[in-house]
C-alpha cells in the first residue's frame, strides 16, 4: 500500500510541476525533498489495555515477571482480538510488558463493539509461582478500555487467600493409580482434599499422571474484599448452565477453591477415573445468602461451578449443601474432574452499557486520565469488581457490561496521585443502579500547583527499510515518574501526539510504548511542554505484514 500511496504523491506532484513548469533563478530542488508519507494508523478503533497486578502488592508486575508471564485469550470472540496494529497474535498470546498487555479489536466487519454487538472474550494469565487466573472481558463501545487482572503469588497470598503447595502429596502405581489415599489439608482447615487409593488422573491431552503427585490448593474467603478482587474468573461472568444455556449475571460468593495436581513431568490433572476426589471447603457464617436475604445457614443449597482455567469458561456442576460440622459451616463435594471450584449463587442480569459517569473538576483537564473504582454491592457489602475509566472531563464515560438492578458503592482509587483526587463529596459514590440513562456525577479535585504541567510528545513509528514512510500511531503509550516512583500513567495518543497532564516539572519520567513484546522507551527530565522524540523503528517483517510485501 505504501508504494501505491507514494506513487500517487510523486505522480501528482510530477504532473503539477510538469504542467506548470517554471523557470527560476533560484536553485531548483526536488519537490519531494524531506517530504514523508505520514500515515495515521487509525484502523484500530477499540483498544484494551490489560493491567496485570500482583494481588499481594497491588503493583503491576515487574518487567522481569512480565517477561515470564503467559497471557492468552480464548472464548466466544477471541478471533476479534488483535494487537494494536491489527495483527493477529500467534497462538492468541500477547506479550506483557511492565505489567501491561496492549490489545485491540479487529476492525473487521462484525467486530465493532456496540450496545447490540458485545464483544466478549476471556483473558488467561499464568506465570511461574502464581495461580493461573482468568478474566472475562466485555466491550460494548469503541474507544479505549482498561481491564485489571490480579494474579496471586502462591508464596505470598493476599488477605483472605490461603495457598498450600504439597509436593509428593500422593504417588501412583505404574498403571497411574494412586498408590495410597492422601489428604491435603490447609493449616487452618479452610479446605481439604482427599485423594482415594486407585483413582487415575489424566491431563487434558489424555496422558496419565504418574509418579509423585504435587498438589496445590488455594482457598478464597468470600467475605474478604482482597480475596474477591483476586477471584479467578471475576464475579460478573457468563456461565454455562446445567441445561446448556448460557447466562450472564453476578456471583454471590460462598467460597472458591482452586486445585492443581501435577506430576513431576509437568502433566496437570484434568480428569479422574476409577474414583472421585473429595473436597471440603469451609464457608464463613457471615456469608450473605441472597435467596433468604440472611446469613448462610446449614441446609442452604448453593450452586457449584467449575472454572476451566485454560479457557476462562464457568460451568454449572450442580449444587452443594451447607453442612454444620461441629459448629463449622462447610461444603463437601465429590469431584470428577479437576478445575477451580466455586460455591456461588448466580443472580441478576447485566446491561450492555451502563449509566454515563460525568466527571467535573475544579479546573479543566487536558487529555484523559485513568481512574479506578472498586465496586461493592450494597446489599451484602461484597466486592464485585474493579472498573477502570478513561476519563476526560469534557465527555461522559460509559461503562460496559455492568450489573443491573443492584445498588453499589464505588470507592475511587487515584493511586495516591498528587495531581488528581476524587472530592470527598463523591468518595464513595453511591449508585442505586448502574444501568439506565441518568448520569452519575463525580467531583474531582485537580492540583493547580505550578509544579505540575501538561506535556505533549510526538511519537513516530517508521519502517526500518523505508524511513520516509512514517506511521503516526493512535495507540497506547505509558509513562512513569521514576524520580518519585509514582504509578504508571497511561497516555492519550492520537495521530502520534501524546498528551499527558499532571507531569511534575524537574522530575525524570520513563516514557514507553510496547509493540510485539518490544519496549521502546526513553527517559526524560521534564523541563518543557513539548517533546518530539520516540522515533520507533519497526522491523521490516512487521512492516511487510502491515503494508504487504512490496505492495
Amino acid at each position, binding site marked *: *500500500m505504501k508504494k*501505491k*500511496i507514494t*506513487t*500517487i*504523491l510523486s*505522480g*501528482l*506532484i510530477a*504532473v*503539477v*510541476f510538469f*504542467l*506548470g513548469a*517554471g*523557470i*527560476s*533563478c*533560484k*536553485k*531548483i*530542488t*526536488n*519537490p*519531494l*525533498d*524531506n*517530504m*514523508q*508519507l*505520514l*500515515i*495515521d*494508523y*487509525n*484502523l484500530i478503533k477499540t483498544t484494551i489495555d490489560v493491567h496485570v497486578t500482583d494481588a499481594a502488592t497491588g503493583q503491576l508486575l515487574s518487567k522481569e515477571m512480565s517477561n515470564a508471564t503467559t497471557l492468552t485469550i480464548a472464548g466466544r470472540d477471541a478471533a476479534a482480538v*488483535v494487537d494494536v*496494529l*491489527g*495483527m*493477529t497474535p500467534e497462538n492468541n498470546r500477547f506479550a506483557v510488558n511492565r505489567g501491561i498487555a496492549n490489545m485491540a479489536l*479487529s*476492525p*473487521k466487519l462484525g467486530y465493532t463493539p456496540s450496545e447490540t454487538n458485545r464483544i466478549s472474550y476471556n483473558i488467561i494469565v499464568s506465570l511461574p509461582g502464581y495461580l493461573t487466573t482468568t478474566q472475562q472481558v466485555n466491550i460494548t463501545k469503541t474507544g479505549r478500555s482498561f481491564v485489571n487482572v490480579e494474579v496471586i503469588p502462591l508464596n505470598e497470598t493476599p488477605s483472605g487467600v490461603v495457598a498450600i503447595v504439597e509436593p509428593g502429596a500422593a504417588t501412583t502405581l505404574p498403571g497411574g493409580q494412586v498408590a495410597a489415599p492422601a489428604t491435603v489439608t490447609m493449616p487452618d482447615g479452610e479446605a481439604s482434599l482427599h485423594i482415594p487409593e486407585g483413582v487415575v488422573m489424566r491431563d487434558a491431552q489424555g496422558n496419565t499422571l504418574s509418579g509423585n503427585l504435587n498438589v496445590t490448593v488455594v482457598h478464597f474467603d468470600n467475605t474478604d474484599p482482597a480475596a474477591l478482587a483476586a477471584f479467578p474468573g471475576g464475579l460478573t461472568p457468563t456461565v454455562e448452565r446445567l441445561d446448556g444455556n448460557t447466562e450472564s449475571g453476578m456471583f454471590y460468593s460462598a467460597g472458591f477453591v482452586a486445585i492443581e495436581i501435577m506430576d513431576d513431568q509437568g502433566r496437570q490433572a484434568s480428569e479422574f477415573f476409577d474414583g472421585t476426589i473429595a473436597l471440603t471447603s469451609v464457608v464463613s457464617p457471615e456469608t450473605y445468602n441472597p435467596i433468604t436475604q440472611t446469613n448462610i445457614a446449614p441446609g442452604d443449597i448453593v450452586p457449584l461451578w467449575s472454572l476451566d482455567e485454560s479457557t476462562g469458561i464457568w460451568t454449572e456442576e450442580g449444587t452443594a449443601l451447607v453442612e454444620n460440622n461441629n459448629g463449622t459451616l462447610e461444603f463437601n463435594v465429590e469431584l470428577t474432574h479437576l478445575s477451580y471450584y466455586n460455591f456461588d449463587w448466580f443472580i441478576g442480569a447485566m446491561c450492555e452499557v451502563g449509566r454515563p459517569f460525568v466527571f467535573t473538576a475544579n479546573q479543566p483537564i487536558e487529555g484523559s486520565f485513568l481512574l479506578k473504582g472498586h465496586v461493592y454491592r450494597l446489599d451484602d457489602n461484597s466486592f464485585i469488581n474493579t472498573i477502570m475509566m478513561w476519563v476526560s472531563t469534557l465527555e461522559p464515560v460509559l461503562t460496559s457490561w455492568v450489573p443491573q438492578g443492584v445498588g453499589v458503592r464505588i470507592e475511587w482509587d487515584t493511586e495516591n496521585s498528587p495531581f488528581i483526587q476524587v472530592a470527598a463529596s463523591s468518595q464513595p459514590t453511591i449508585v442505586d443502579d448502574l444501568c439506565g440513562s441518568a448520569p452519575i456525577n463525580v467531583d474531582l479535585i485537580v492540583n493547580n500547583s505550578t509544579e505540575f504541567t501538561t506535556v505533549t510528545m510526538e511519537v513516530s513509528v517508521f519502517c526500518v527499510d523505508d524511513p520516509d514512510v512514517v506511521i*503516526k500511531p493512535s495507540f497506547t503509550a505509558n509513562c512513569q515518574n521514576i524520580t518519585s516512583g509514582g504509578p504508571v500513567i497511561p497516555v492519550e495518543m492520537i*495521530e*502520534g501526539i501524546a498528551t499527558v497532564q499532571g507531569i511534575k516539572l524537574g522530575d525524570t519520567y520513563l516514557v514507553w510504548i510496547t509493540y510485539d513484546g518490544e519496549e521502546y522507551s526513553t527517559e526524560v527530565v521534564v523541563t518543557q511542554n513539548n517533546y518530539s522524540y520516540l522515533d520507533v523503528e519497526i522491523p521490516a517483517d512487521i512492516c511487510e*505484514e*502491515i*503494508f*504487504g510485501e512490496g*505492495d
Partner: protein
Amino acid sequence: MEEEVPVSPFGLSIGVKAGTQGIGGEVVFQVNPGIHLRLGGSYYKYVQDLNQLEEQVQGEAFAKVGGVSLLANFHIGRPFFISVGGIYNFLEADAFGLLSEAQTINGVEYLPDEIGTLELNVKPGLLLTPYAGVGFGRTIAANGKVSFAFELGVVYLDSPKVIFNTTGMIKPTSNEAQQKQLAENIAWMNMYPAINFQLSYRIF
C-alpha cells in the same frame, strides 16, 4: 509581411495570439508609432485523467494558463520591441487522486476513500503578475492592415502558493510541517516563461 496602407499617428488593431499563456485575443492601441498599449486575454486548460498515466491511481489533474494582460510595447528600432506590463494571472495547476482499488491490510479490506485522497494545488504567489519581454514584429501594423509579432518574456509569479490536502489514513501527510516543507521545496518556481505568437489586424 505588412500590407501597404496610409500611415496614421494613432491606430487600433485586434489580434489573435497563442503561446504559453494559452490562446486568446488582444486589442492594441497605438499611442504613437513607437508605443503601443495592449489589452488582452488568453486561456487554456489541460485536463489529464491520472488513471491513464498510472492504473493504480484514479483522479484528475489539470493545468490552467492565461490571464488578462495590460502591456505596453516600446519599439526600440524596427522590428524589435520591449514589452512590459502586468497580467491578472489564471495560472493554476491542480491534481486530485486516490487509489483505484481497495487495499487489504491485515486481512481487512479498506476502500480507497478510507486510505485517503490527496490533492495538490499550486497558484502564483502574486495574483497580479509583472511581465517583461522582448519581441520581433508588430502587434499593430505600421503601414498596412495585418501584422505579426513574436515575443519571448517572463512572468514573475513570486513563490507559489501551495494547497496540499490529504484525507483518510494519509491525512497527517499534509500537516503544517509538510505543507511548509513542500512550499519551500517549490519556492524556486517563481517565474513562468512566456512565448507568444500574435497575428493582428489594424482597424484604423
